[in-house]
């Protein structure tokens, strides 16, 4: 198939549609996934093709949405549960962390929970402290959960399709500020393998490690730095579990410097975990401390000025890289 121009949102929708056509057991369960078409439009019109029996609208009962998906996944369906905002993880963490994540292990490998929890997070819409968080650290901290965070339309499509073939629960966190982002992609092209990071830009002076929307912020920074003859390598992790440290280590061993960029809060978060791993694994190669650029340790404020200042910016990445290189 030739390249087509598609948004991140429509790539996700296409992935669901293709998966549901290929596998009758795939059902979507969540609030407003049917007639409404999803709060962010990802399931728009799917009910026309697949009906209310497969686009299952629920009451506003997030813990039961996830719990029902767990039970359905154990008994023959492959549910996609939609959690409208990742912030609602606070409501569902028992079903996700104590049930879905542990059932295979606790039961001695008898059965898995092949479900996908689709949700979206991040800032960019002045949605406030309860609708703008980046909570991937909670998921990454829970053994038994896979975690995908696509930055591009192509990855949104391929990672979601792959998630729907896995034997284990996958938390699939989209970014609310990426839904309208357009890209030319060939959805039939061979995808990057699941669990592998991708080098979005090659460089020699320093390695930027990031994922989700921060990939685009970091790419903008890398372009500005290139104009100043600073060559940075940019790695998009794509999945945080599995975590492809081999790609990161190979790059940092070559560049000798690393900056980790994450939208989530700094303390105890994904950036901290990545920095610790790079520090342990690449110690002999490092010419500077591994720097974490992450969200401030504050609730996300509504004011657009404050909101955008609470997370790493391209300008901050540029300034930080220049200081690290003393240029």
């Amino acid at each position, binding site marked *: 198939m030739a390249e087509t121009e598609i948004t991140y949102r429509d790539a996700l929708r296409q992935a669901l549609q293709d998966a549901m056509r290929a596998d009758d057991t795939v059902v979507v369960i969540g609030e407003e996934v049917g007639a409404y078409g999803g709060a962010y439009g990802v399931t728009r019109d799917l009910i026309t093709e697949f009906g209310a029996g497969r686009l299952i609208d629920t009451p506003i009962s997030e813990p039961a949405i996830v719990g029902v998906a767990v039970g*359905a996944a154990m*008994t023959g369906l492959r549910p996609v549960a939609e959690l409208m905002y990742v912030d609602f993880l606070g409501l569902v963490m028992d079903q996700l962390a104590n049930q879905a994540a542990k059932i295979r292990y606790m039961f001695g*490998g008898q*059965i898995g929970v092949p479900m996908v929890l689709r949700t979206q997070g991040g800032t960019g819409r002045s949605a406030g402290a309860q609708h703008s968080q980046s909570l991937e650290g909670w998921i990454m901290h829970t053994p038994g959960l896979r975690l995908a965070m696509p930055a591009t339309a192509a990855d949104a499509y391929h990672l979601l399709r792959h998630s729907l073939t896995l034997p284990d629960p996958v938390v699939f966190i989209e970014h609310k500020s990426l839904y309208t982002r357009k890209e030319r992609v060939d959805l039939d092209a061979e995808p990057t393998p699941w669990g592998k990071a991708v080098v979005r830009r090659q460089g020699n002076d320093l390695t930027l490690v990031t994922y989700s929307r921060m990939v685009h912020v970091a790419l903008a920074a890398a372009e500005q730095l290139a104009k100043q003859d600073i060559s940075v390598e940019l790695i998009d992790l794509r999945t945080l579990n599995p975590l492809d440290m081999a790609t990161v280590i190979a790059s940092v061993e070559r560049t000798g410097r690393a900056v980790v960029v994450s939208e989530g809060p700094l303390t105890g978060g994904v950036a901290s975990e990545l920095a610790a791993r790079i520090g342990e694994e690449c110690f002999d190669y490092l010419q500077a401390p591994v720097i974490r650029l992450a969200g401030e340790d504050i609730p996300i404020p509504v004011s657009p000025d404050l909101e955008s200042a609470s997370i790493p910016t391209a300008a901050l990445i540029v300034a930080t890289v220049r200081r690290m290189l003393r240029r």
Partner: protein
Amino acid sequence: MTPPDATPGPARANTRLPELYRTMRRIRTFEERVAELYARGLSAGSMLHLSIGEEGAAAGVAAAMRPEDSFTTHHRGHGIFLARGADPARMMAEIGGKEAGYCRGKGGSMHIADMALGHLGANAIVGGGIPHVVGAGLSYKRLGTDAISVAFFGDGAMQQGLLYESMNMAALWDLPVLFVCINNQYGMGTRIDRATRSIEFDRRAEAFGLAAAMVDGEDVEAVHRTAQALADGARGGKPGFMAISCFRFFGHGRMDKSPYRTAEEEATGRKRDPVSRARDALLSQGLNDAAALDALDAGIAREMDATIDFTAAADAPAGASMFRDVFGPGEPEPEPLQSRLDRILADA
């Protein structure tokens, strides 16, 4: 719904009381051996929750289920699993944390499960397994099977919000699901009258549109009749709820000395004994003589004694199995701490 006729007739040729008695006696004896396993230091930990006094609920409901049906239980679910056909030796081995157990020693008493018998899992989170049967019901309806799924939980879960989300969805979607509350009067140390002013649990379920009943758990035949009617309804797409009243003879777990209840309260409660009541009924109805029941009980005692010997002799899981089954077959496994250290500190 109106509970089925609870008045026992004269001795009936088709009574299932002998079978129900046998199930209950096996549960009681098994639980007594669990206490012994702990006392002998052979159990994995002390978080063992005995269902002595609650045998009527487990036996009565289990007898109304079919082989294709599935279920989840709470943390006090040994009896239910036994009543659904579990091998007591493999159960005891699991409670002992042994490789020969149902979950290869990784689940234990509170997380025992067996897909072959439809046991979707015991759960150590109060109410945690309830929505799973709604999901199972959704699968059965969508896949067109005749199975139902049954959630067993205690009176503690009656105060958990997730129960009501689950009952609401089951009713809304006409799912083949049965909710079974085993009300043993205590949520850990809190007696039910200190937990809620709403003890007519069936009214809560009726409010969501479920067929609902309350039944005395001391009368195993009444439990069975009620469960059968509700299970039949669930199989037809009308989800049901039943609350079975009984008395927890012993403390919450093995460490519980019951400071929250008096000796008199215990003595009175223990008179509500479904096992001795069934035995008396078998004798008075002429269905068994005392010698036959004694022989049956002795055979069960021998069977359950053997579960302790089996567990004592069984192997612990191999250390390398620790990293197995976090994810599915062939999927990348977590890296053990030691292998990471050996790599990072190779030159140190």
